C-alpha cells in the first residue's frame, strides 16, 4: 500500500491537502504575477501578429541591440567577479569572528540591504556627479580646474552595482565558510600545511558551493538590474532591463520587449541548469 506523501515541519505532519493550502497563496501570486505575464509576453514575441521569430532575429541582427545584450552579460560578469573578490575576505572574517565583532560585521552587511536600492544608487550620484562630493574635493584641493566626468561609464556602473549586490555574495559565502568545522583547519596545520596551504587545499575547496551560489545570485540579479544602471550608467551604458522598459513605455513595442525577456530568460535557465549540475557534483563532497 502506498502512503500519501506528507510534509513534516516542527514535529507536525501535514496532509497533502494542508500542504497545498499552506502553499496556495504563494503559488497563486507566482502564477498570476510571474508566470502569466511572462507567458503573455512570450506569446506576444512569437505569435503577434503572426507566428514569427523576427523579433528574436532583430536582437541578434541589429548591432545596437546585440551590443546591449553583450554589455549586459559583460557587466553582470564583471559585477560578479568584483563582488566575489570583495566579498570573500569579508565573509572569511565574519566566519572567524564571534560575539559583538560578528554582530557588527553582520550589521554592516545587512543594513545596506534593508535600505532602498534607489537610495543607495542616489548616494553614488551625490558622490560622482559634476558638482558632487568628489569633484568638489578635487577642485577644493586645486587638483583639477574643471569638474571631471565620473558618471555614465561602464566602470561606474560595475562599481555601483557591486556595492548594491555585495550582500547577496557575502551571505551564502559566509554560510558555507561558517559550516566548515574548525577541526579541518587544525588537522591541516598539524599535518604540516602552512596557513596559506591549509586555506588553498581545505578551506577554499569546501567554500566553493557558497561561492557558486553567491555568484549565481549576483549574476542573475545583475542581468535584470534596472535602477542602478539606468541612473549611474545613463543612456551610454544602457542594459537589457532599460531596453525593455524603453520598448514597453516609450515605443509600446510589446512583441520586441517580449523577445528581449525571452532571450534573458533563456540565458538564465541555461545558467541555472549548469549551476545545478555543479551543485549535484558537490553532493559527493558532503559530510556523512
Amino acid at each position: 500500500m502506498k502512503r500519501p506523501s506528507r510534509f513534516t515541519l516542527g514535529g507536525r505532519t501535514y496532509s497533502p491537502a494542508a500542504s497545498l493550502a499552506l502553499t496556495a497563496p504563494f503559488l497563486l501570486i507566482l502564477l498570476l504575477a510571474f508566470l502569466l505575464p511572462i507567458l503573455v509576453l512570450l506569446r506576444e514575441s512569437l505569435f503577434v501578429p503572426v507566428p514569427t521569430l523576427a523579433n528574436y532575429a532583430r536582437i541578434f541582427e541589429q548591432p545596437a541591440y546585440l551590443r546591449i545584450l553583450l554589455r549586459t552579460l559583460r557587466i553582470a560578469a564583471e559585477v560578479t567577479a568584483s563582488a566575489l573578490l570583495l566579498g570573500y575576505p569579508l565573509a572569511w572574517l565574519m566566519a572567524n569572528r564571534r560575539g559583538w565583532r560578528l554582530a557588527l560585521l553582520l550589521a554592516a552587511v545587512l543594513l545596506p540591504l534593508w535600505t532602498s536600492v534607489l537610495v543607495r544608487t542616489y548616494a553614488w550620484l551625490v558622490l560622482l556627479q559634476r558638482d558632487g562630493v568628489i569633484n568638489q574635493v578635487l577642485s577644493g584641493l586645486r587638483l583639477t580646474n574643471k569638474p571631471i566626468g565620473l558618471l555614465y561609464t561602464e566602470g561606474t556602473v560595475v562599481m555601483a552595482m557591486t556595492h548594491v549586490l555585495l550582500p547577496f555574495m557575502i551571505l551564502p559565502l559566509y554560510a558555507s565558510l561558517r559550516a566548515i568545522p574548525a577541526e579541518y583547519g587544525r588537522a591541516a596545520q598539524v599535518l604540516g600545511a602552512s596557513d596559506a596551504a591549509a586555506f588553498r587545499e581545505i578551506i577554499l575547496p569546501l567554500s566553493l558551493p557558497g561561492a557558486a551560489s553567491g555568484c549565481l545570485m549576483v549574476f542573475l540579479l545583475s542581468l535584470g538590474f534596472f535602477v542602478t544602471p539606468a541612473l549611474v550608467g545613463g543612456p551610454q551604458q544602457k542594459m537589457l532591463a532599460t531596453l525593455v522598459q524603453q520598448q514597453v513605455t516609450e515605443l509600446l513595442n510589446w512583441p520586441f520587449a517580449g523577445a528581449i525577456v525571452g532571450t534573458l530568460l533563456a540565458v538564465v535557465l541555461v545558467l541555472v541548469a549548469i549551476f545545478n549540475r555543479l551543485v549535484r557534483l558537490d553532493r559527493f563532497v558532503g559530510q556523512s
Partner: protein
Amino acid sequence: MSSAASIDISRLVKRFGTVTAVDAVDLEIPAGEFFALLGPSGSGKTTILMSIAGFDFPDSGSIHVGGRDVTFLPPQQRDLGMVFQRYTLFPHMSVAENVAFPLKMRGVNRADREKRAREALATVRLGELGDRRPAQLSGGQQQRVALARAIVYRPPVLLMDEPLSALDKNLREEMQLEIKHLQRDLGMTIVFVTHDQTEALTMADRVSVLDGGKLQQIGSPRALYEQPATAFVAGFIGETNFWNCTLAQPVAAGAEVTVTLDGGDEAAAIAACALPAGPARLAVRPERIRLGTAGLAGMVAEAIYAGTSTTLILRTAGPDLRVRFGPVDVLPASQTAFTWAPQDARLYPA
C-alpha cells in the same frame, strides 16, 4: 622504525579568562612510551594536548619535544602526528588523497606519496578503500584512515584526542588493541587523551590522572589501581567504597593505623599520605572486602548479578558498601560479618 622523541613538559600553566585550565603541570614522557592523559571533562587534559600540538600557547612553562623547545612554535613546524575525536578527514578528497596530504605538504613527489599512502592504508587494514570518499566509510574506518594519515610521515610523536569516543563499544575495544599493536610496531611516542579509565589502563604504559587542571598522580596502570595517591584517583580509577573515619593521632605516610569508623566500629588501614589527627576518609575496593564470621557486622541488602561477577550491597553501621564476588561464590546469608586486610584500605584527608 621511526625514531621516537621524548616529551618534557615543565611547570605548564594555561588560563582561559579567570579559569586556570592547566595549573603548573610537570610531565616527563620518555621516547617510545604510550602515555595517557586521563581525567574528567574540564580536568585540563585536552588543553595539555593542544599545547603539545601547538594550538594553545601556555601562559607560562615550557614544552620540549625530542630536546627541542617547541613551546611557542606553530603546529605545522612541530612535525607531530595527531588523530582528533572526529570530523577531520577532508570531505572533498578521496581516502588516499587524505592519507597523502601530509606528504604533499612536505613536498614528496606524487609517485612516492601514492606508494606510501597505500602502505599506510595497508597498515590499518584499509588497503582497498583508497578511492572512496570519507563519507562512504563507517566511523571506525574513518578513524583508521585518520590514523593512517597521522603515521604516514612517521612522526616521532603521535597525539590522540579521544579518538575512540565516537565509536561503539566493540569497535572501541578492537581499535584499542590495534593502536597498541601499531605503536609497538612503529615505536613512536604516543600521548593519548581519554576520559575513559578502562581505556587508559588497557592501552597505556603510564597514565597521568588530572583533575581541575592539577596533576593527581602519574604511574603504571597497576600502581594507579593498587596505590592511588589521592582520594580523587581512588574514586576515578576503578570502583571504591569511601567511609568517613576519625584518627586519634597524626600518622605518617605508609604507616598502618587503627581508625574509628563512622558508626563506631574500628578498623585497620594504611595512610596514603601523612595525616593529622581528626577526620579522614577510608577507601576500600569492592573486591577486597571479605565476608566471614568475624569482623564488622553487615546485612546483605541487594545482590546484583552481572555474569562474570556479582555485586552485593552491604548495609553497615556506616555507609552502604559494594562487595564484589566472582561467579562461583555461594551468596552469603543476609546477616553476615566482613573485614579487609589493612593494606587493602587506604586513608586520605577528609
